[in-house]
């Protein structure tokens, strides 16, 4: 069989049903085989979005998404999407065509060193040099991208490899991984001792909580040890936010109650998080008063950003179960005083963000989304202030999913990710919450959505500015607004209509519920363009490089600095 046929057969063997891609000269044999295969191919309008769609698909199904691009510009266009997936540990398999091995290295037409380009942003990549390697590499690639910490992998597939014959022996050969992932639970007893001794434990859940889908176990642990649960941006949605112990996101734009509780406890049980600067604030100030138990699937994360931790290495599901088993027979204190104090903080932070203004306020939009999105909705976001409003106010209840680009912060991620998510879960309502700046980076994918009958909704918070940058320039650059004014164009309603989609413009807050409900009824992709008040700031904000004590609160914030409850826990030496 031909190399290209073997590729398709390997994809089918791995259970791939959808591939996102864009053809080109160097992957024509592969596309010829896809023509006759059962794999559904979604033609994108830009390769970057193929990677984002595969990413969104993977985040919903927790199994690899596949994207395909040609050599040269196809490969370079994929880079942003793959780097996004790498930073958020999302399993995608990227396949790029490549010029034939005979001319490789000669600056042939559409040749770029894709292998070298991708190397720093993938878990592993391969350049296949003979057709017999195709089956082994593909099996290995799918194994690597979901073994241990998830991550993208890349396969560079030269033209002649796609055309050459693959021997039957190579196809039949079984793949056996050379390396076995190590668990390290040697400090489990230390961790249990810390948890027992703690008077005020807090559980911090990161993206690992979502990838391992162990929300139920985490809540059991929280209930057992009497600890409130806070999440990072990537961990948002790993535990249902309507649970009384779940306080919400911490970090730069997190909830005050979550950030304050994290700093006030005496033990942090960190589950699947890498202590990003966006969630910890100033690292030297973080965790000074606390003991830290750090659970991560990736041994290199333990002690990377925050030192002196008790590290447990392993899949979150396994480790949390080990902790549960270890703690089960012990007489744990109920920690009622601590939970009472946290409960009082939670009340102090429970603002009513049903804000009214002459222009629509962004918080109001999120408030309406909370009310009107179904309980199994998927909300994706782009990057910017709208993302932070969503992080802060959106309620990821049981069954809802929140997808965002946290690590790389890729503007334009949300819309293609929403398309990928809708393809992964056609029965669920998928909405992309966008800003006008971000959406313009990838709005060409309306064509993809419309052509493929992928009925996602897009809600644009339109302020005519690159709002996040505008806000930073306002707060820290003496209101010197450099290159942030996007002007009045384009008309998003007309853009959507030009692509055969439906759209409405909302200028009064009273029209929001109808628009949101209409987007759920539509038979085509639906866009809601909401003109928001551009002067509304995204607050609270923890200034970059500052600690949790220096958070700037918003004018309507009712947080009193946790004063309603006295006696902070004394610091441990």
């Amino acid at each position: 069989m031909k190399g290209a046929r073997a590729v398709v057969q390997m994809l089918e063997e791995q259970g791939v049903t959808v591939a996102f891609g864009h053809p080109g000269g160097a992957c024509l044999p592969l596309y010829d085989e896809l023509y006759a295969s059962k794999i559904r191919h979604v033609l994108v309008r830009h390769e970057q979005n193929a990677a984002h769609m595969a990413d969104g698909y993977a985040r919903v199904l927790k199994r690899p998404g596949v994207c395909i691009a040609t050599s040269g510009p196809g490969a370079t266009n994929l880079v942003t999407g793959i780097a996004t997936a790498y930073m958020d540990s999302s399993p995608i398999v990227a396949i790029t065509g490549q010029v034939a091995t005979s001319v490789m290295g000669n600056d042939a037409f559409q040749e770029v060193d894709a292998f070298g380009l991708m190397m720093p942003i993938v878990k592993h990549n391969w350049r296949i040099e003979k057709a017999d390697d195709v089956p082994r590499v593909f099996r290995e690639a799918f194994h690597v991208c979901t073994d241990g910490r998830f991550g993208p992998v890349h396969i560079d597939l030269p033209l002649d490899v796609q055309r050459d014959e693959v021997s039957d022996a190579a196809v039949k050969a079984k793949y056996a991984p050379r390396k076995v992932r190590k668990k390290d639970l040697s400090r489990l007893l230390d961790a249990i001792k810390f948890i027992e001794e703690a008077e005020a434990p807090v559980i911090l859940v990161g993206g690992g909580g979502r990838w391992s889908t162990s929300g139920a176990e985490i809540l059991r642990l929280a209930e057992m040890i009497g600890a409130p649960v806070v999440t990072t941006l990537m961990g948002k949605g790993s535990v249902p936010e309507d649970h009384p112990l779940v306080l919400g996101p911490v970090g730069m734009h997190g909830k005050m109650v979550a950030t304050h509780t994290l700093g006030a406890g005496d033990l942090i049980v960190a589950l699947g998080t890498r202590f990003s600067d966006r969630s910890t604030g100033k690292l030297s100030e973080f965790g000074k008063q606390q003991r830290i138990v750090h659970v991560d699937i990736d041994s290199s994360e333990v002690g990377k950003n925050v030192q002196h931790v008790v590290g447990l290495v392993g899949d979150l599901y396994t480790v949390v179960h080990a902790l549960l088993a270890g703690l089960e027979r012990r007489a744990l204190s109920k920690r009622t005083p601590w939970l009472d104090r946290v409960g009082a903080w939670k009340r102090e932070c429970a603002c009513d963000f049903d804000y009214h203004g002459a222009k629509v306020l962004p918080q109001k939009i999120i408030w309406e989304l909370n009310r009107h999105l179904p309980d199994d909705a998927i909300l994706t976001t782009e990057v910017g202030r709208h993302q932070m409003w969503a992080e802060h106010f959106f309620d990821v209840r049981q069954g809802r999913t929140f997808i965002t680009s946290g690590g790389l912060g890729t503007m334009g991620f949300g819309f293609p990710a929403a398309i990928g998510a809708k393809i992964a879960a056609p029965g669920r309502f998928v909405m992309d919450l966008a800003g006008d700046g971000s959406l313009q980076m990838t709005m060409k994918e309306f064509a993809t959505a419309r052509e493929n009958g992928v009925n996602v909704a897009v809600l644009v918070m339109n302020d005519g500015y690159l709002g996040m940058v505008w806000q930073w320039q306002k707060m820290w650059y003496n209101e010197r607004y450099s290159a942030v004014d996007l002007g009045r164009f384009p008309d998003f309603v007309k853009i959507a209509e030009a692509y055969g989609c439906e759209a409405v413009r909302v200028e009064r807050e009273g029209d929001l519920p109808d628009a949101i409900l209409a987007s759920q009824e539509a038979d085509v992709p639906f866009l809601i363009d909401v003109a928001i008040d551009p002067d509304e700031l995204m607050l609270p904000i923890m200034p970059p490089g500052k600690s949790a004590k220096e958070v700037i609160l918003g004018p309507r914030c009712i947080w009193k600095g946790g004063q309603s409850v006295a006696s902070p826990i004394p610091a441990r030496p």
Partner: protein
Amino acid sequence: MQRITAVFTRKRISIDTILAGRCEKEGCARVLLASRDPGFPKMVEHLRRVHDVLDVEYIEDDAEGFALLRSAAGRRAVVGKAGEVDAKVASEDGASYVTAYGAL
């Protein structure tokens, strides 16, 4: 090799010596890296993450040293403990030299 050195590049840790070659396992290579950088020991876990790397071991500093010297008197090699080699090289004023460190 590129994947391994890329990890050091990204973390801004310089490597003093790289020694790589065939080893007892067929199809595998053993790589010895030596560095005086204080962050060097912490790299073990980061290297383990690299898919091609089968295992990583950290050996503390009783390294063997090796130097090639070229002076007016001709070329010669110096072998010994790292400190001794350094001392010998320092005593050869003005000679061109290259040093390497490693431990097994």
